[in-house]
C-alpha cells in the first residue's frame, strides 16, 4: 500500500506522518507537492497538520484551492482513502469533503496536550481494526479545533455514523471537562457519508511510538492497512 503525504506551503507535520508510515509501519510513502495535479499511484492521501498559507484568512481556506486538491476531491469521490489531520481536517472542511466547520478554541488559546478519544464508529476504514470500547490516547495541538455544525447537519451525521471520535475522560466518559476546545458534542473527528474521508483534530502520527508517550495513533494507520488489504 502506498501513502501520499501532501505538502502545502506551511505544512509542518508532513515529516511526522511520513516518518510514521515509513519508519514505524514500514509501508511505502511519498510526499506530494501542492502543485501536483494528480494523485495517481497512491492508495491513501494524508493531509498533514501545520499552518498551510500561515492559516491566514481562515485555516485551510487558501490551501483548498491548491492544484493538488482538485485531484484529491476526485480521488475521494471515487472512494479513495483520505485522512486529514488537524490543519488537514480544516482543509477537508473548506474543500467541502466533510460537513461542518472548525473555529477558535473556546478559551482562545492554542492547546497542546494528550487527549482520550472515544471511538463512536468501528465500521470505517480508519477504525475497523480497533477493539470495541478501547479508548485512544492521542495528543492535540491547535488553536482552532472547535467543531461546529448546524443542528440539522449534526442530526444527520449522528444518524449515519459520521461522528467517529469524541473527546472523553481517561475513563471514557464524554464530559465537558474532557472537551479541550469547546467542540460541539465533544467531536474530535468526523467522516463523510461514504466513510472513506476522515478528518480529525488529534494527531495520530504523534502517538505512534512508546517513546512519544502513546502508540495508539498507530492503530488508526493499522486499520487503514487492514481495510485496504480487505478491499483488494
Amino acid at each position, binding site marked *: 500500500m502506498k501513502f501520499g503525504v501532501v505538502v502545502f506551503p506551511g505544512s509542518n507535520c508532513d515529516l511526522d506522518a511520513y516518518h510514521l508510515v515509513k519508519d514505524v509501519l514500514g509501508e511505502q510513502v511519498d510526499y506530494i507537492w501542492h502543485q501536483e495535479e494528480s494523485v495517481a499511484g497512491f492508495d491513501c492521501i494524508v493531509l498533514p497538520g501545520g499552518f498551510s498559507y500561515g492559516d491566514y484568512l481562515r485555516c485551510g481556506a487558501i490551501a483548498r484551492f491548491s492544484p493538488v486538491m482538485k485531484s484529491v476531491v476526485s480521488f475521494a469521490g471515487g472512494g479513495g482513502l483520505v485522512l486529514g489531520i488537524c490543519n488537514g481536517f480544516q482543509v477537508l472542511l473548506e474543500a467541502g469533503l466533510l460537513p461542518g*466547520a472548525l473555529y477558535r478554541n473556546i478559551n482562545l488559546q492554542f492547546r497542546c496536550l494528550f487527549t482520550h478519544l472515544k471511538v463512536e464508529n468501528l465500521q470505517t476504514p480508519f477504525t475497523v481494526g480497533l477493539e470495541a470500547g478501547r479508548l485512544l490516547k492521542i495528543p492535540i495541538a491547535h488553536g482552532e479545533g472547535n467543531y461546529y455544525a*448546524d443542528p440539522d447537519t449534526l442530526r444527520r451525521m449522528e444518524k449515519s455514523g459520521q461522528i467517529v471520535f469524541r473527546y472523553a475522560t481517561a475513563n471514557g466518559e464524554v464530559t465537558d471537562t474532557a472537551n479541550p476546545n469547546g467542540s460541539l458534542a465533544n467531536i474530535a473527528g468526523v467522516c463523510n457519508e461514504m466513510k472513506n474521508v476522515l478528518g480529525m483534530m488529534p494527531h495520530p502520527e504523534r502517538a505512534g511510538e512508546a517513546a512519544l508517550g502513546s502508540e495508539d495513533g498507530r492503530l488508526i494507520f493499522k486499520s487503514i492497512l487492514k481495510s485496504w488489504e480487505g478491499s483488494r
Partner: protein
Amino acid sequence: MWKAEIRVLLKKSVLDPQGQAVENALGSLGYGNVQDVRIGKYLEVSFDAGSRQEAEAQVREMSERLLTNPVIEDYTFELVEE
C-alpha cells in the same frame, strides 16, 4: 477602479468566544450597559470591473468562494468607486 469594503462576522447562531471575552472585559471595566460584542474581519479589495452590477456580482462570488466560510460566517459589503 472599485473598492469593496467587506465585513465578515460569525453567524448569530455560532458562539463567538473572542466577542465573549471582550464583552466580559468591558463589563469588568465598568461598562455594565454592554449587551453584546461580536468580533469579525474587515477586508478591502480593490479591483477593476465594468459596472457596479458586475462589481457586486464579483464581490459576492469572491466572498462565497474564499473570503468567508458560509458554514459559520455571514458577510456584508459596500462598494466604493475610486
